[in-house]
């Protein structure tokens, strides 16, 4: 679904990623780990087309990102749900409106309005449907971001440090939600530097761990 072939990317004169080759198969579950500043967020951005590789190629659903027209990029993003580290909400809209936003911008609606209530219940936010994002706690915002990422029923979920600002219990809760999505056949990749979270996933899902080190991505399954 997502394939990177000898990808290189850097900021200014510094190289951040070099000769990265990896792929996310349908229904797979990946952790992307590495120290802060190693390039996890950059790699995630390459995977949903916000950045374009300087060298090599990134193919999303078989289509080279570099060759995509802008409308193709928009269409592709409807198939990839992204949970951003800082959530990225529109503060003037309610939580429910924010969650529905991917549907709104694509001119679609839910088949059944009760689906929204089910989604809110799934992430435990039924009571906060009308709250504005600034009124929510960090954990609530992360769960809302996850709800927004899945409302289009995307094929792939990319979560960038989804547990970065929440306590351990909430981290486990978010991990469970992502595992549930994987069991429904979604491809999931979580960028995190929290090794305890990765270890706790071991009993729930068959996950592959990718580590960014020295600008390159290596499989680290044996270290889990």
């Amino acid at each position: 679904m997502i394939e990177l072939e000898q990808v290189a990317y850097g900021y200014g004169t510094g190289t951040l990623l070099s000769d990265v080759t990896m792929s996310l198969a349908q229904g797979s579950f990946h952790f992307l780990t590495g120290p802060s500043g190693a390039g996890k967020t950059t790699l995630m951005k390459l995977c949903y087309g916000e950045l374009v590789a300087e060298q090599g190629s990134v193919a999303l659903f078989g289509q080279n990102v570099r060759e995509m027209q802008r409308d193709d990029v928009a269409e592709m993003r409807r198939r990839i749900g992204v949970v951003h580290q800082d959530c990225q909400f529109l503060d003037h809209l309610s939580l429910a409106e924010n969650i529905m936003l991917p549907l709104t911008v694509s001119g679609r609606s839910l088949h059944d309005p009760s689906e929204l209530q089910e989604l809110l219940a799934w992430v435990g936010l039924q009571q906060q449907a009308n709250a504005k994002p600034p009124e929510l706690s960090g954990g609530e915002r992360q769960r809302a971001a996850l709800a927004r990422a899945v409302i289009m029923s995307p094929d792939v979920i990319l979560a960038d440090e989804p547990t970065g600002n929440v306590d351990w219990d909430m981290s486990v809760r978010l991990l469970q939600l992502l595992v549930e999505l994987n069991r429904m056949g979604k491809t999931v990749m979580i960028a995190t530097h929290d090794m305890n979270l990765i270890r706790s996933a071991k009993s729930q899902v068959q996950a592959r761990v990718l580590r960014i080190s020295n600008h390159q991505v290596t499989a680290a399954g044996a270290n889990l």
Partner: protein
Amino acid sequence: MSLLSNILRFLSGDAQADRVVPPTGFTARLTVFASAAMAFLAVFALAFSLATGRLADRWGDALAKSATIRISAPADQMDAQLLAVTEILATTPGVKEARPLGENEQRALLEPWFGPDLPLDRLPIPRLVEVIEDDEGFDADGLRARLAGEAPGAILDDHARWREPLVKAATRLRSLGFVAIVLITTLAGVVITLAASAALSANEQVIRVLRLIGARDSYIAHAFVRRYTLRAFGGAAVGTILGALALFMLPSAGAEGGFLTGLGLQGWQWLWPLVIPPFAALVAFLATRQAALTTLQEKR
């Protein structure tokens, strides 16, 4: 038909899409205020331009078709020379009407300088004959030659001496009015473009979020363009109404007011300000659309 349906679809909008743009903020107020101020000024520029046009026409037409004959003669010859002038004018081709000014009319002309108690009968005041030309006009040199022979105290003043600079001045004023409209229109475009750019910069985060969740450029641009076009239209409508009210309430200077009296709009000219709000909306539409597409091109 397609254009009309596009316009109608644009105006009817999409309630959901409208919600994605934050409803308030300084850029919203800036757009409304800038549009209102520009429209207010545009009303005055319009009135100024139309007034200068009328003034130029009035000066040109009125002075071009009139002339004055001044008779300076001893009191005992005055009536004879006046009679001779009247007879000459009656037989001069191109003269539509000739009329000696009465004592009261001459008194009225002199009153602003000498006061109301002017003893005209005791002063050697020349007699004036007002001459109105027909469309063909008369031969001024020929008339002067006849006057010199038959009424030596009569001098023809066809206003050419001072009509020319007046018409030139009026034409310049008309040009200035036009320049004022062009400048204000350009300034309105610049200000609204700046406001739109500022709005888009202030909402950069909104645009980024919308792109990341799969919104197309056309969707994002449309949401911002519609919002700012309607704001510009609303602001311009308020500015136009205030400008028109201000014009309407200009104090009447009466017949003596000259140019000031003519600054307002007259008759069907009051319809002209109605053009301003749609025009401001069009400028806002084009400016915001260009700014939105430029901003979006900078993002992946």
